[in-house]
């Protein structure tokens, strides 16, 4: 996809955000009378809503300290690691329909096959996904969502957003998050208090599981970074870009095993995922 930074959606989003947050003075402005370098830096950072984002970062830190971190620490203390891994596998298995739909839409044919086989094998032999049997059979796990799907279609990410509870994000990925919930069959199946309770329970366990997996890393950043907000912003963007690149560069053959296989593609120089450049540039 061409790496043309699309100014119009960015500008429109920023304007909308500014109108919304205008009363709070929530928009950052380029450095007044600043050097060309400073202005370029501002554009590269692509965080016109920075004051608002920092506010929500503080809010999030509070919620995290009060709710999520203690829950995650308790979870780590009370539940042994193999069981935690099993829970993570089972949760991933439950998301298989959404993962599969995204794989198909991207389109990533080989990964779609992986997801389907993983779902079938792990749900049965792996006992509702608790044991990841499929990995050993040649179907590696992967995570994907509608945000990545849209990125592969060429939708630019838009300015950085820091959302309460969800954390670092951007308009594209936030829309993707909503779309994934809408695509999830479990959202629509059944009605009544039991079903609602199960769904809420599933999201709650997902949140605690996700928080537990990054306990050490988040602590390290908060302790050693001079500006943790900027560090999280940078890491989020780099990681997101690397997920998108990895999906795009997955060129494993899609020819069935019993068919004559095409020759393996020669790896061109620089075929590795390109090293991350300045984060904030609208990704391809």
């Amino acid at each position, binding site marked *: 996809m061409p790496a043309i930074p699309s100014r119009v959606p960015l500008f429109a989003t920023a304007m909308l955000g500014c109108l919304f947050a205008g009363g709070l003075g929530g928009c950052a402005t380029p450095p007044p009378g600043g050097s060309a370098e400073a202005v370029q830096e501002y554009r590269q950072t692509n965080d016109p809503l920075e004051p608002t984002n920092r506010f929500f970062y503080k809010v999030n830190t509070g919620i995290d300290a009060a709710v999520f971190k203690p829950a995650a620490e308790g979870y780590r203390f009370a539940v042994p690691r193999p069981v935690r891994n099993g829970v993570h596998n089972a949760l991933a298995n439950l998301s298989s329909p959404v993962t599969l739909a995204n794989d198909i839409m991207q389109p990533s044919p080989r990964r779609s096959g992986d997801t389907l086989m993983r779902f079938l094998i792990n749900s049965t032999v792996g006992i509702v996904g608790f044991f990841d049997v499929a990995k050993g059979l040649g179907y590696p796990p992967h995570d994907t969502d509608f945000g990545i799907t849209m990125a592969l279609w060429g939708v630019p990410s838009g300015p950085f957003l820091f959302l309460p509870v969800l954390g670092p994000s951007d308009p594209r990925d936030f829309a993707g998050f909503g779309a994934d919930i809408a695509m999830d069959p479990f959202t629509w199946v059944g009605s009544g208090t039991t079903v609602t309770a199960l769904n809420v329970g599933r999201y709650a366990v997902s949140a605690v599981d996700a928080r537990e997996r990054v306990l*050490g890393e988040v602590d390290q950043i908060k302790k050693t970074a*001079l500006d943790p907000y900027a560090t999280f912003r*940078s*890491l989020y963007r780099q*990681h997101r870009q690397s997920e998108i690149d990895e999906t795009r560069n997955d060129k494993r053959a899609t020819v069935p095993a019993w068919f004559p296989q095409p020759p393996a593609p020669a790896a061109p120089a620089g075929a590795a995922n390109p*090293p991350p*450049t300045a984060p904030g540039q609208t990704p391809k």
Partner: protein
Amino acid sequence: MRRTQFLLSGLALGLALLLSAPRARAQDAAAFVRQTGDALVQVVNSTAPRPTKREELERVLDRTVDVEGIARFALGRFWRAANPQQQQEYVHLFHEVLLNSITSKLGEYRGVQFTVGRTVPRQGGATVQTVILRPNNPPTNVQWVVADTGGSAKIEDVIAEGTSLRVTQQSDYISYLQHNGNSVQALINALRRQLAQASG
């Protein structure tokens, strides 16, 4: 959020390189990384007391990693705004902070194993891909950007699961500077405070 600890763990694996580092051509870069990793695993698993381990790490860090290059990159355009004395002090502080981060992670890497994957040549060196396996953790992909600096190989950057150490540090420091009046002295003071807290 992903595993930023691997930024430093990956860097830690770059330490412990031996004295006569060969020119980092593509085929040598892989050997360089393998030697480095093996030697580092030895340090990690050794039973020496922590201060000794830290000294060993420091010696190797200086020999194998282009710390000044990373520090310079992290400061971005503000490097030119600093006077030579500030530049020197900043690089020294950066070196200490980096060493502290790596040393604090040593315990988590007991029993670590790694495999060297593909080497991708690039201008002035090569990028070597490795997979790092810590016991009870999923495998992590770490790329080592190895550069030829005047005849000896040096590690210029570590990219763990797609996140680059240099780029992340730069984002952190540039943002801090922007919010503290573009003053390099303020950054230096903040680094000093950070070091004092760590040792206090």
